[in-house]
């Protein structure tokens, strides 16, 4: 029924899109063209079949010895064996018999880009007129002090920088006199980039001297030479004069955007690159590349690391760049796939989840979900692999990992199942699972030495069977974990004391309605949780640790939908405020701010905002709350 729900949700598509796609309005091409095309295709097909129908397929991997002189020969050899797929049939005749429907073409047609709007960026050779005298103020609530995360909202003490689906806005910070100083679209035409941008994935950084915005712009290239190629543009914008923003540098790296961070003026950029049908005479089809403005160049062969046993045809690539000049300081690529990324002050931890299958007696198979965690040091401007470890279970997100005093702490949801597969005479395979879903799901907390990979401590199944980890937050030698039976909408929150790894203690709240999707230290010894109540609506809750256990101090609930992206929340620990955009089912899109007075939540702001809550951000400056959302901007004196 999930896809049906998706289909039904399509009913909320804007009228504008329905009108433009109205079948009656869309242009129809002349019939003769269709028949001419079909006739031409048939002729081509018949000719091709006539020529190749009975030629036997070659079943050995292609010979790649011609590339023996290439510095990438070890990569070519590895990928050649791994990407080669033996033909299913002996020849085309067999394939034809197996079904003409399998003869599918993959033709890539040009698609049009939407028109960009607003003013464009200034010319690179137009110098800025003002020198920056701004002070940088970080608004991303970072996981690790000093490791800055990208977002769609950054600020100095003078200006707010905001981006929504490739549109950049700059607002002045002048209380009621605040205004929009500049806006433009960073989108580019299909002709320029050979594809189209994923506007919703854009995020950016503001340099500590407030002179440069570094924008991460993922896109997909859909030219005819590649089935598809994911890339990331990194653009440096000079914002010294916010009314005349200029692009100063643009580089492009291959791969789908994974994550990024800025640490001490260095940008860490991580991508995943899938290898499909490599053509070893064309390096762009099988090697990670970077274009610094003079065409694409491959990562040096010395920086491509292959495991002893090659199992993945995907690279995780890491680029260490100067945040403002985008000069490459170091790069590395690993033939592995990464899902979640956690970055500490000097290491990157990339996770990769897989399912381990173990054959057992009587034809039974046991599966166990595992997560491989690879560590890469980026200290001193160089990227160095530091080994990897494997833990049972899957991690929820980056907050499930934390490095503290040489110890990596990880919280996972473990999942095991046991089943038997039966192959029937008609070739169909059916599975009978003998482990029910609840008993196969557990929880685990691991403390691992990051140098020796020795497991120093482990807490297994701290939550009842069947509960999954929904949110985690480490804070020094404490860990807070919310687990839940998602379908039943109930959650305990666990407080771990990790100060003595030989004696880890844990307290919990007992069963509470709903569950938290984000947990964060709220100051004054309180823990803040944002998530769902028992009706799957917004619930914000404050917890406190006591001698006896953990208690819920206050909760706020609203019949509303909200963003689950932690970065979209405005959190002020000093004043114990939390703000977020919501869709109130009675009042529409709103921005609300709650004040926690030690006993209860009080709404101090509830204003309409014509913007999707996913794109709402806010900052509190001198008592004024500056709220942005899509093209909306509001300034509210919060204490009036």
């Amino acid at each position, binding site marked *: 029924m999930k896809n049906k729900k998706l289909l039904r949700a399509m009913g909320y598509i804007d009228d504008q899109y329905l009108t433009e796609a*109205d079948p009656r309005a869309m242009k129809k091409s002349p019939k003769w063209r269709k028949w001419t095309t079909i006739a031409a295709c048939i002729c081509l097909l018949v000719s091709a079949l006539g020529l190749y129908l009975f030629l036997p397929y070659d079943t050995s991997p292609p010979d790649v010895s011609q590339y023996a002189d290439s510095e990438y020969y070890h990569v070519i050899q590895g990928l050649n064996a791994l990407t080669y797929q033996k033909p299913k049939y002996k020849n085309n005749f067999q394939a034809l018999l197996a079904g003409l429907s399998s003869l599918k073409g993959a033709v890539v047609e040009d698609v*049009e880009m939407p028109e960009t709007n607003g003013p464009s960026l200034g010319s690179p050779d137009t110098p800025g007129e003002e020198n920056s005298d701004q002070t940088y103020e970080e608004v991303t609530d970072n996981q690790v002090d000093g490791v800055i995360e990208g977002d769609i909202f950054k600020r100095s003490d003078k200006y707010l920088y905001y981006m929504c689906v490739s549109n950049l806005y700059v607002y002045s910070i002048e209380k009621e006199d605040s205004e929009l100083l500049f806006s433009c679209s960073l989108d580019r035409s299909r002709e320029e980039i050979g594809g189209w941008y994923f506007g919703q994935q854009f995020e950016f950084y503001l340099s500590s001297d407030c002179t440069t915005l570094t924008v991460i712009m993922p896109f997909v290239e859909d030219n005819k030479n590649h089935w598809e190629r994911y890339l990331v543009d990194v653009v440096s914008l000079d914002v010294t004069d916010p009314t005349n923003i200029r692009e100063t540098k643009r580089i492009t790296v291959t791969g789908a955007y994974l994550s990024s961070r800025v640490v001490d003026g260095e940008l860490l950029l991580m991508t995943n690159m899938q290898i499909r049908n490599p053509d070893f005479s064309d390096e762009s089809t099988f090697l990670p590349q970077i274009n610094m403005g003079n065409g694409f160049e491959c990562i040096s062969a010395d920086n491509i690391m292959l495991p002893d046993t090659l199992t993945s045809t995907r690279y995780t690539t890491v680029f260490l760049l100067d945040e403002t000049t985008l000069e490459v300081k170091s790069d590395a690529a690993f033939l592995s796939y990464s899902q979640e990324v956690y970055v500490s002050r000097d290491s990157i931890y990339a996770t990769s989840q897989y399912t381990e299958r173990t054959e057992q007696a009587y034809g039974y198979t046991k599966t166990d979900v595992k997560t491989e965690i690879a560590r890469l040091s980026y200290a001193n401007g160089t990227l160095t692999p530091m080994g990897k470890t494997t833990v049972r279970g899957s991690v929820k997100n980056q907050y499930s990992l934390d490095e503290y005093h040489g110890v990596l702490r990880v919280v996972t949801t473990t999942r095991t199942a046991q089943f038997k597969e039966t192959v029937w005479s008609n070739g169909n395979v059916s599975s009978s699972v003998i482990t029910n879903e609840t008993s196969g799901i557990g929880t685990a907390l691991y403390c691992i030495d990051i140098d020796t990979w020795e497991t120093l401590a482990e807490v297994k199944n701290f939550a009842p069977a069947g509960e999954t980890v929904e949110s985690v937050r480490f804070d020094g030698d404490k860990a807070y974990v919310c687990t839940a039976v998602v379908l039943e909408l109930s959650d305990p929150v666990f407080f771990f004391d990790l100060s003595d790894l030989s004696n880890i203690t844990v307290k919990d709240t007992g069963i509470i309605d709903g569950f938290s999707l984000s947990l964060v230290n709220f100051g004054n010894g309180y823990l803040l949780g944002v998530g769902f109540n028992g009706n799957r609506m917004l619930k914000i809750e404050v917890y406190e640790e006591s001698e006896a256990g953990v208690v819920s101090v206050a909760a706020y609930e609203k019949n509303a939908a909200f963003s689950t992206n932690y970065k979209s929340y405005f959190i002020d620990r000093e004043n114990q405020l939390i703000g977020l955009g919501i869709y109130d089912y009675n009042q529409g899109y709103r921005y609300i701010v709650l004040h926690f007075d030690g006993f209860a939540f009080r709404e101090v702001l509830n204003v309409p905002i014509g913007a*999707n809550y996913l794109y709402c951000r806010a900052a509190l400056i001198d008592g004024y709350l500056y709220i942005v959302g899509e093209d909306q901007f509001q300034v509210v004196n919060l204490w009036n």
Partner: protein
Amino acid sequence: MEDQKIVDLYWERAESAIQETQKKYGKYCYHIAYAILYSNEDAEECVNDTYLRAWNAIPPAKPSRLSTFLGKITRHLALDRLDKHHAQKRSGPITLALDELSECIPDAASGLDPIDEIALGDAINAFLAGLPLKTRQMFVRRYWYLSSIKDIARDVDMSESAVKVTLMRTREAFRLHLEKEGIVI
């Protein structure tokens, strides 16, 4: 007759409003209903129900785009009717579209967040906003109007395989978008 005049007829409670609606949008609504129900009889009943719903909704409603206003009612009624008839009657284009859409649903095992239809609709619109026009038209034709690949290919002047590839790529981008937004259905 112009949409505004038809809406005026509804406001005047003139029965000719229904006749004019039928004349101008009967086929359009039928097309939407048939794509979901795959039955002449059911589609016609659904279209008749649409007129009744429109009669009851206008006034107070004053739709600026009568076509999409009627189209949404028809689609909603058709999906309701499909629910009532349950699985034994589910066949035709909707089955294929449902199968294709299932690719876009992020893996629930990754522990993302359940979400309601309206929020999902917002996410869909946010996604559509970022698509190139032609790609967006194809996506909406396929999953809102439930048009066949063949019809879409004809109307956008592309080969069927190119439409399939574009739709497949868009579904992948849509899946990534839902995943990125932390959406699980």
